[in-house]
């Protein structure tokens, strides 16, 4: 394997590991704010119990996200020096704004949010929670702006092979940005909804029927059931946008080889790039045309359009994009089914008497958001190949000349560390749930303390 492929795998591994944690913190920040505000409004301590449990998950996820994010910023230099050298004039300011408007905000107020409850007034603590949630969202915004610009670059000119910004409004509000941003925010919301529902279900199965667990389960199910239709809608719009700007990606997602009307929706197949056809195809006639163009006879682009006369393949590898897309959609369908079933059961039984079987199902789906997010990420990022910046910079022109052996060595190192950490992360969340169930975490219900105690003791009627 050469440096290019190894560097791609390494960056792919890094970003896959990294994205797991922002996916949780982006939405969990807002959920925590919701818990805190509910507590302030009602004085019902179940909301504070829920806050105290989930803030630990937040802190852990945040730390994992920060350290893996630092890795990414260094890898631009160590593995992809051509990236900043070519598009630095656009990427630079966007990254700088992320660091300045988001990173510091999150990092500083996180300290106050985690450890400051007894040192500041309650409203300051709520404000800190808000600023952390706001910071993670800002961070998402800037990163998605940059990522979207790499897919649909606008507002620049090339001078001597280097990109120069000409219109910052066009750069920031590039054509795919709104769709990507909404899609990512909803993905985070769904990931958190199913994580909260799943962990709460686990605690209930372990016999913890505390008010906070029931409240969290309810919040998780309702959020999941509410967000999933929005996500399907946003995904559909995003797909139409991709069809307009990156037709090769859509062709790979659909597994469609020849451009034409009346294209079927391929449910399953094994794309064969050598034979340039699908094997074992199961398809529904006309449906791809109908979905993508809203007309049965609509013309959908095919992969064969993206092979140059010299035979050079200018479309992404088909199989990974094709399968990743199906995994994402499949997970989404499962989310839809389970959350709506959960909603119905919630109405029928209430959170406290939820039958065991759906509780097991929610447990099993705790990390389904991760699967969907990763699959979606692979669809869009592998789908961009062979370009790093669509039409501007190809991936092979950005890679560093570090020896392949060195990249392989560090890749193995990262993979080992990441595997251990994922294992530890899920283990610790399970342990936190167990600890909360056995009451260890609640043995001393001594919050809120300090100055805050005066206020909330009155609220709590103590």
């Amino acid at each position, binding site marked *: 394997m050469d440096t290019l492929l190894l560097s791609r795998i390494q960056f792919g591994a890094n970003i896959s590991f990294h994205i797991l944690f922002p996916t949780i913190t982006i939405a969990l920040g807002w959920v925590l704010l919701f818990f805190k505000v509910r507590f302030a409004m009602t004085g019902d301590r179940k909301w504070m119990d829920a806050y105290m449990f989930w803030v630990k998950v937040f802190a*852990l996820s945040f*730390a994992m996200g920060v*350290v893996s994010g630092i890795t990414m910023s260094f890898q631009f230099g160590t593995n992809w020096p051509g990236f900043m050298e070519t598009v630095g004039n656009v990427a630079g*300011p966007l990254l700088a*704004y992320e660091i300045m408007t988001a990173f510091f905000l999150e990092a500083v107020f*996180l300290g106050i949010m985690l450890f400051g409850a007894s040192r*500041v007034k309650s409203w300051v603590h709520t404000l800190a929670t808000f600023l952390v949630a706001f910071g993670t969202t800002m961070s998402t915004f800037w990163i998605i702006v940059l990522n979207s610009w790499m897919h649909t670059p606008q507002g620049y000119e090339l001078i001597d092979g280097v990109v120069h910004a000409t219109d910052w409004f066009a750069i920031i509000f590039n054509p795919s940005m709104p769709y990507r941003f909404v899609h990512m925010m909803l993905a985070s919301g769904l990931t958190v909804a199913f994580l909260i529902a799943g962990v709460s279900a686990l605690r209930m199965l372990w016999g913890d029927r505390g008010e906070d667990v029931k409240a969290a389960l309810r919040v998780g199910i309702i959020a999941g059931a509410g967000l999933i239709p929005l996500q399907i809608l946003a995904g559909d719009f995003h797909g139409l946008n991709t069809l307009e700007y990156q037709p090769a990606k859509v062709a790979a997602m659909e597994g469609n080889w020849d451009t034409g009307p009346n294209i079927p929706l391929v449910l399953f197949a094994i794309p064969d790039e050598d034979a340039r056809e699908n094997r074992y195809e199961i398809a529904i006639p006309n449906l791809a045309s109908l979905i993508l163009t809203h007309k049965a006879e609509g013309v959908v682009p095919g992969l064969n359009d993206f092979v140059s006369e010299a035979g050079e393949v200018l479309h992404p590898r088909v199989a990974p994009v094709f399968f990743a897309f199906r995994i994402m959609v499949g997970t989404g369908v499962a989310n839809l089914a389970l959350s709506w079933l959960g909603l119905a059961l919630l109405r029928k039984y209430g959170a406290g008497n939820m039958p065991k079987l759906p509780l097991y199902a929610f447990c099993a789906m705790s990390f389904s958001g991760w699967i969907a997010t990763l699959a979606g990420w692979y669809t869009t990022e592998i789908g961009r190949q062979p370009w790093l910046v669509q039409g501007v910079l190809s991936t092979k022109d950005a890679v560093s000349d570090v020896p392949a052996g060195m990249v392989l060595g560090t890749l193995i190192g990262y993979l080992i*560390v990441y595997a251990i950490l994922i294992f*530890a992360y899920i283990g610790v969340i399970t342990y936190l749930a167990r600890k909360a169930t056995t009451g260890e*975490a609640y043995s001393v219900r001594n919050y809120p303390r300090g100055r805050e105690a005066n206020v909330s003791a009155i609220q709590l009627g103590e």
Partner: protein
Amino acid sequence: MAYFADPAVWLPWTFAALMGLSTLIYVVLDGFDLGVGLLMPLADEDQKDRLVASIGPFWDANETWLVLAVGLLLVAFPPAHGIILTALYLPVFIMLIGLILRGVSFEMRAKAPLAQKRMWNGAFFAGSLMASLSQGFMLGMYIMGLTWTWAHVGFAALTALFLTVGYSFIGAAWLIWKTEGALQIRAIRWAKGGIWGLVAGIIAISIATPFVSARIFDKWFSVPTAFYLAPLPIISVLLVVFVWWQLARLPLNHDRWSWTPFAAATALFTLAYGGMAYSFYPYVVPKKITLYDAASAPESLFIILIGTVFVLPAIVCYTLLSYYIFRGKARDLRYD
């Protein structure tokens, strides 16, 4: 300095200054919390918790200054960013693994089952050690011009050791300020043990740098600049004497002067750093690329600068607010 009217001159200069400032803030702030991590094995089991508590609310924000420094290198001097980081591929990898281990074990040790706590404490120390050593190594390689020869690697290994001990010194100085009782007395002892690393490091770099480069030699040892620069080493010597004298008489009643070793350590790091910055200016990659050659397009830098003018003061303000909120001696960290 009429040529400062040209944006292609003052913008790169401004960004070099901002990057330098960010790096300095990083070295001092993450220096002390890396240092506390390095001291972990020397502390008792219950003291370990206090050590972690003393940096708990801060470490995350401290580390962000590294992201800003690298970010500014990346956005303002893209070619230099590529050259420096590909040359330092392996030490960067070790630093990143170190920072990952450290940041994660920080959270894990408090949340994982008690039986695992020892392991995560170990990971916290190991991560701090990896990050400190690799940063010192990179510093040495940078001074030597980013070329991998045995002599250069040897020198870098020395700076790695010295910076690591130097970090443990500023970490101990932080603990003198933020702790009390038996732990504070221990911290004083640690600081006494660690200060030689900082001193040796400053001396090694001060001697080596001019000999690596005739240009830097001339910058320092020509008349009259030598006289302007003389206060730098003189104040450094005075600071070291002051710290030594303070460490001998601390702790005082009512905890007076307990903040002075940390302040002096900060001043020492700042002076040493200032000297280095003076040596290398205007080069961003030693002997190869000046910051003017490597700078991004002025219009892009200008876009960032506008934001910086508004945002950086805000960052400084709320960072100070956080240190103010968590002022006083470190208490147990509690989420509830």
